């Protein structure tokens, strides 16, 4: 603003209805400013191009569209899944059975080698969820007979682990023939204290979420016996 006059902006705002006592006092004594107000107070002639000046059809929708877009983004942001506190590591797929052999003071994982009398065998299970475990076994001497019954050696629940070890171990005897074990894994306990493996286990395996693993653990004595027979 010059010392003498209000700015043109202030005068223009005053002319369009703005209230400003300081400007009112000024224009009362200023011919230049009154002249400006008179000039801009003259109604203009409407030009020929004016009817062609039209608002953009969707101009009014811009804020609405923007608000909607922000709303959707906020919704997506708020509903995004929380990241896990720590990465989940677990078993995938059907359970896996691992045999651990203790010979003397050394524990190794069984890899189809011959077992020795007095070896101790323990089972480890890799499970994806809490599972009921039943282990059946049949005496080596009776295993060869058709319809031999297997006795329940272990029954209990196991939690997922990598692997979860049974709290039971079996010692290998010196009887001829391999040791045979059947491990039944399922969502519920089995009632039968005995079963006939060839007959019953195939049906058990058909139950939902039930797995049957048959283990044949060859023994050195049985191999030696076979050699003697030849």
């Amino acid at each position: 603003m010059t010392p003498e006059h209000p700015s043109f902006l202030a005068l223009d705002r005053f002319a369009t209805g703005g209230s400003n006592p300081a400007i009112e006092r000024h224009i009362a004594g200023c011919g230049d400013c009154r002249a400006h107000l008179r000039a801009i107070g003259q109604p203009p002639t409407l030009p020929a191009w004016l009817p062609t000046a039209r608002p953009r059809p969707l101009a009014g929708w811009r804020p609405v569209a923007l608000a909607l877009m922000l709303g959707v983004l906020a919704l997506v942001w708020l509903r995004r899944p929380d990241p896990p506190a720590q990465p989940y590591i677990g078993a995938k797929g059907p359970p896996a059975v691992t045999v651990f052999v203790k010979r003397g003071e050394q524990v190794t994982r069984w890899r189809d080698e011959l077992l020795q009398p007095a070896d101790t065998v323990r089972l480890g299970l890799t499970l994806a969820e809490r599972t009921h475990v039943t282990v059946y076994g049949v005496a080596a001497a009776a295993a060869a007979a058709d319809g031999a019954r297997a006795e329940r050696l272990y029954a209990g629940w196991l939690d997922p682990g990598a692997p979860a070890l049974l709290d039971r171990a079996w010692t290998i005897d010196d009887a001829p023939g391999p040791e045979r074990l059947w491990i039944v894994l399922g969502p519920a306990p089995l009632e039968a204290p005995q079963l006939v493996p060839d007959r019953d286990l195939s049906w058990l395996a058909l139950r939902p979420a039930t797995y049957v693993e048959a283990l044949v653990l060859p023994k050195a004595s049985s191999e030696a016996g076979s050699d003697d027979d030849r």
Partner: protein
Amino acid sequence: MSEIEAAYRRYQPLLRAKCMRMIGEAEADDIVQETFVRFVRSRALGRAPDVAIAWLYRVATRLAIDRLRARSRQQRALDAIQPASTLDRRGANEARSVLRRVAARAPRRCIEVAILHRIDGLTHAEAAEICRCSERTVRRLLRRFDEVAARVMAS
């Protein structure tokens, strides 16, 4: 009377007066038309007069700068610009003369602030409102304009 016609009747006179102060009668009507068409298409059309006038000042000033710079580049007869006679403020003629010579050299923002302050007589606060910046920035831009103007005038 439509809203557009009412706006034209209300704002065209002050808009034309501003364009004449900035760039002279020869091109004032072109800038008035271009500014008003943009105004109709903007959201400022339905706003309160204070807001609408600020919008018109801002856009008209920038369009006038485009013209001044183009004219300067084309070396057309700069002196064809006529002063706005009785509506002028003290010092505005000199400012306009300087502006014509430095239009192509000074940054646009500096020219914008110089027009608003030196020709339209806006205070620093009013210029800051129109340019959407701080008063401190207005003062800095004016100093920059004066530095460029001094160099141009000296050469």
